């Protein structure tokens, strides 16, 4: 050591130090303990998942770990038992065995038992000391504290888990193979217990079939390499992680507290998820499918015959023509009825019937294709109230049937609007019922156009993502814009992500357009009346607040796709 400034040192020679310790047993014990903690901290920083720990967290963790001695032949963990600790082998050798088969021998520096620590699963192997061993015991609370230190200890532990685990398919999951419009073969998995769906590429399907609970990531990667001639450990790992997170693998799911700890850093994601819960609130009615199946078999199926469909098409087309032809004269005929309260007593239940017919269109078309409708209900979706049915089971069907189901609600709506327009034509021109029929038809056509907008997650959106064969198009586009666009710009190529780029940019443009439209409508219809009540400055400021509010909510609805 070289002094870089003038300094004063105090010295204590070895003999004096030994005498001091001999006369102060407590001091000796404290110093020994401190030295041991420093040695353990140094050891920790050499063990793979903990190398990124800074000195202070490593010392804190070292102080918390229990030390354990194991005699040769002793079982340290036993297969099938629950456990909430993992072990760091400090000295000695251990043998790992499962189902009577020896899997590996581990030496000093190895970590084992992490699976039970990170997941709800019982111990998946027995670990036995091959010689006298010294171990460090890490309990879940110690790991959670280390994960909270801001380093990537948690993700490295999860990486270790993924490397060693032998993933298995969840029982009861059904698979449906189909060809896409690009003549690619994909497989859709369905877990009927929830229900949940997962799309697999040809390569993903290859892996899925290998997930028998006997192969590790290493073995899967080798088989993948042999089949597809590509070294793809990250791809294999990503597919397994996605399947695990989606609940399609048996066991191996990370515990809630571990997941929470891993995602604790992204506070904005947690905030967006909370916002989404409020802005996409739904009240679901489950157990609809048996009722819909009975109704479909008992009569609705006749509407799905060729004759039934031809009749419905004639009504929809004739009604639209009649509505368009009478549009110019209708305004004058309505003039005397706007202030009549009876008009609203007719229109409100009619509007509710319109919603029911729209959703029935989706639901019965799902039944016509032999699929299930597990639930339906009402709720709120960002800008207004909604009614809905869950048509997720159509993920198992081909592109044509999926588009048909997405557009069936609008088609049912067009038929109802056509009936209303025809009724308006047949009723006495100046009557209240004629006026109500015309307004009803207008409302149905207008909401149909709104629901066709593919930039919002309504019927038009699902039809577009099916047409493009791009499931999760909105989320995919937003994530691609946020994460991959800079790289694509640098590389100067889109690598087949043109649809994501176009949709993402259009969604952003729509946000600006919707905000401008809100401002324009405010100025046309609200600014004048509000200026009479408030000052002009206050009414004007309110208008800008409306524009900002619409822009904020629209951007928030896009940003929440990043939160997962």
């Amino acid at each position, binding site marked *: 050591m070289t002094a870089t400034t003038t300094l004063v040192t105090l010295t204590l020679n070895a003999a004096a130090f030994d005498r001091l310790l001999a006369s102060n047993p407590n001091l000796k014990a404290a110093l020994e303990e401190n030295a041991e903690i420093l040695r353990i901290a140094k050891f920790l920083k050499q063990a793979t998942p903990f190398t990124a720990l800074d000195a202070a967290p490593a010392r804190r963790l070292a102080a918390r770990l229990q030390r354990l001695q194991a005699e040769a032949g002793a079982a340290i963990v036993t297969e099938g038992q629950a456990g909430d600790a993992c072990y760091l082998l400090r000295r000695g050798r251990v043998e790992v065995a499962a189902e009577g088969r020896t899997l590996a021998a581990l030496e000093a520096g190895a970590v084992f038992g992490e699976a039970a620590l990170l997941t709800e699963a019982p111990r998946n192997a027995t670990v036995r000391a091959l010689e006298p061993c010294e171990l460090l015991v890490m309990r879940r609370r110690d790991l959670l504290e280390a994960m909270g230190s801001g380093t990537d200890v948690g993700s490295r532990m999860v990486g270790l888990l993924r490397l060693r685990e032998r993933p298995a398919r969840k029982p009861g999951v059904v698979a449906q193979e189909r060809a896409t419009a690009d003549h690619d073969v994909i497989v859709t998995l369905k877990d009927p217990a929830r229900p949940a769906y997962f799309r697999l590429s040809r390569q*993903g399907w290859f892996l899925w079939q290998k997930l028998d609970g006997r192969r590790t990531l*290493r073995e899967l990667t080798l088989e993948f390499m042999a089949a597809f*001639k590509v070294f793809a450990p990250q791809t294999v790992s990503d597919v397994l992680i996605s399947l695990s997170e989606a609940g399609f693998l048996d066991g191996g799911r990370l515990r809630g507290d571990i997941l929470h700890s891993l995602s604790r850093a992204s506070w904005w994601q947690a905030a967006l998820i909370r916002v989404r819960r409020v802005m996409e609130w739904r009240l679901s009615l489950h157990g609809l499918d048996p009722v819909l199946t009975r109704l479909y078999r008992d009569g609705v199926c006749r509407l799905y015959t060729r004759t039934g469909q031809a009749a419905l098409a004639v009504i929809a087309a004739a009604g639209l023509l009649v509505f368009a032809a009478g549009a110019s004269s209708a305004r004058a005929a309505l003039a005397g009825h706007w202030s009549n309260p009876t008009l609203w007593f007719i229109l409100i239940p009619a509007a509710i019937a319109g919603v029911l017919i729209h*959703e029935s269109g989706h639901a019965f078309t799902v039944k016509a294709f032999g699929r299930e409708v597990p639930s339906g209900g009402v709720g709120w979706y960002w800008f207004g109230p909604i009614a809905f049915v869950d048509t*997720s089971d159509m993920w198992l069907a081909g592109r044509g049937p999926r588009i048909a189901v*997405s557009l069936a609600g609008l088609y049912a709506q067009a038929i109802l609007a056509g009936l209303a327009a025809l009724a308006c034509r047949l009723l006495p021109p100046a009557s209240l019922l004629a006026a109500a029929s015309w307004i009803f038809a207008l409302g149905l056509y207008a909401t149909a156009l709104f629901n066709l907008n593919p930039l919002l997650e*309504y019927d038009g959106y699902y039809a577009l993502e099916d047409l493009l064969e791009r499931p999760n198009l909105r*989320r995919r586009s937003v994530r691609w814009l946020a994460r991959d666009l800079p790289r694509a710009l640098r590389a100067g190529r889109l690598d087949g992500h043109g649809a994501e780029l176009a949709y993402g940019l259009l969604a952003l443009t729509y946000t600006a357009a919707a905000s401008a439209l809100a401002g324009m409508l405010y100025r046309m219809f609200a600014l004048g009346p509000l200026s009479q009540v408030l000052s002009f400055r206050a009414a004007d400021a309110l208008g800008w607040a409306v524009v900002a509010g619409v822009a904020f909510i629209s951007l928030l609805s896009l940003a929440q796709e990043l939160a997962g």
Partner: protein
Amino acid sequence: MSYEAVGKLVDLWMSDPGFRAQAKKDPRAAARKAGVELNDEELTALSSVDLSLSDEQLQARISKFFS
């Protein structure tokens, strides 16, 4: 195919971010640096590191009617 050699690369890939970054840039050099000897077929496979797959959980299809 050498099980041990490629298996060692998988272990390194999962546990060593430095190896991962290098393997993405120059997989052959990364394998050489790791002391792994590969045959021609394995080297070819290593040259096309990873794929971008479309495997994903499908979001629920909620057919909504804005009313």
